[in-house]
């Protein structure tokens, strides 16, 4: 197995509150890892820590990505290197055109990779091809970034960004919450389209339904700032039946 990201003894706080308390997690390249755990366990904090969110202060431990420590890297650098987080609560940015934003992001990445920038027409073609698959209306191109988007539209827009930026490690923080059945199917389809045996997924969820669509390879249980159990997909049914309290720390 080849490890793309390794998290060791990670301790982190937000404000005065220590949230991650010696967390260990290894992500195997090309696999789908699901993280489940009770509210407030630290799942979003973990994802924020991986992408370098300003709220989080790392107190100890390390995160290595492709063999290099990333804890001191800027958020933009991590993104350019291929780490992507679909936010639990994407922020609204009035006045910033969605297509313009996405093209700027894509061209920043292309520049980083030594590729030529896409012009507006080329980009629009690319964006439109994805919009249709995600069942997104074409006015999403010209609207302000997430402004006034419904919960489902915001989540689809996160997936759109993922499809366009083609990251290597993809963290999806509750991508499924608040989605109706059609949206869940569209979003899952988008995710499955990105599965190519090389990209790695970290799917944070409370529900097994999305896991029916995207078939995880590993389930990790995160509780009180630590990963307390790692198992195969069969663990989902057990969790559904008995809850998190029944899980013993390994």
């Amino acid at each position, binding site marked *: 197995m080849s490890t793309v990201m390794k998290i060791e003894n990670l301790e982190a706080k937000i404000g005065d509150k220590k949230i991650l308390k010696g967390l260990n997690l290894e992500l195997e390249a090309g696999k789908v890892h699901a993280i489940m755990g009770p509210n407030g366990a630290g799942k979003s904090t973990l994802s924020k820590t991986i992408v370098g969110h300003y709220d989080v202060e790392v107190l100890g431990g390390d995160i290595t990505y492709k063999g290099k420590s990333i804890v001191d890297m*800027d958020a933009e650098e991590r993104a350019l290197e291929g780490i992507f987080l679909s936010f639990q609560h994407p922020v609204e940015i009035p*006045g910033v055109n969605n297509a313009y*934003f996405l093209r*700027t992001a894509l061209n920043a990445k292309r520049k980083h990779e030594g590729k030529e920038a896409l012009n507006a027409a080329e980009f629009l073609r690319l964006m439109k091809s994805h919009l249709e698959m995600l069942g997104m209306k074409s006015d999403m191109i010209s609207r*302000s970034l997430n402004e006034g988007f419904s919960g489902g539209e915001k989540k689809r827009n996160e997936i759109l960004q993922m499809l366009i930026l083609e990251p290597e490690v993809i963290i999806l923080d509750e991508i499924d919450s608040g989605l109706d059945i059609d949206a869940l199917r569209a979003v899952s389809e988008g995710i499955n389209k990105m599965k190519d045996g090389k990209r790695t997924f970290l799917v944070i969820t409370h529900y097994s339904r999305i896991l029916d669509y995207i078939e995880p390879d590993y389930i990790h249980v995160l509780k009180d700032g630590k990963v307390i159990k790692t198992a195969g997909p069969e663990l989902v049914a057990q969790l559904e039946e008995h809850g998190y309290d029944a899980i013993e720390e390994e």
Partner: protein
Amino acid sequence: MNLITLKNKNAEEVATLLGIKERNLLVEKFAALGLPNKKTEEYHYFDVEKLLDVDYKTLNYVPKSIEEGDKVEIVDGVVTKAPKGMRVYSEPCETIDMDHFDALYYLGHLLSPHIIRIEVDGDCHVEILHKYTQSETLINYRIVISNQANRHTTMYENFEAEDIHDTLVLYGYDMHIAQDSTLRMVRLQTMNDNKYSMITSHKVNVAKNANVLLKNFDFGGDQALQVLKVELGERAHVDAGHLLYLNDDSKRGTASQIIHRGEHSTSKQEAKNILDGQARGIFDALIRVEHSAKFTKAEQNSKSILLHEKSYMASKPQLEIYIDELEASHGSTTGQLDEKQLFYLQSRGISYIEARKILVIAFANTLIEQVKDSRHQDRIKAAFEEVFYVANKG
């Protein structure tokens, strides 16, 4: 001429200093208000005395024969061009507001007994270009604009300066917006080096059912203050606002009074301020609702982004209300760029500098997009991006 010599002088002395015999009422109004200084409310945040206390050269304003052009062009206070068929001429001013709060409004009229009168006729778009060519000079002129009932006009005001320095421009409008008409005035200033300072003092009368829109896009350097008084008749409406983008040590902004006189009159005033360097932005804006103005709606808002720890926004939205039957709101916020928004952009691989640009431009665009004509909207957007990019290389 050094205008500071008019400080603390009585009407008689002012008249003598300005070499004026008649027009006594104006002299008295000016002397009663006194030359503005730091303690004058509307000049409190503006170094007015420093600008007045300079020995400026003065000009003779001899009307020229007006060439035909695609816009009204005013060079150093004298009209040189005007569109075919438009009535632009010089005449003594007959309608001066005898209750203006600004001493420089009166000084402007005293120094310019002949005004430039522009009669806008019909539904049209008019551009006014102000050009300045003289250094170390006091350039002083007044403009009267009137339109006709039921007509809808848009005016674009632009500025150009030759390679000049240390000039003070004092000008202003007396506008008479006729019943049931609309007048939109969109002003753009982009000059970004210290060529001239400017104090403009306006008076806008908005007749029954008329609409006026006054938008000032000010991306200039050095010092400029627009002093504005608007009076609203019955069911009259004003939408006033400015977008400031200031850098270095410039000080610019608006000091205004919007007065609701007529019933059902409405006002909206929105200021957006982006301040960098040691710049100071000014929004000192009073909305007064008089006894006669029942069922008024007044809305006032100022939002500022400070991009530098030394930049400063003097934001003072104020409501003065003498009746109960009205809807009014006002607010003022000042802060940095939104961290969450910045982070969202950065988390997609956009650099901090680029993310900052995107957010600042977005903040500005919400006001710029109120200019409905797309060519002019694009022109203002481009002007903003140009000054902003020059200041934020990287």
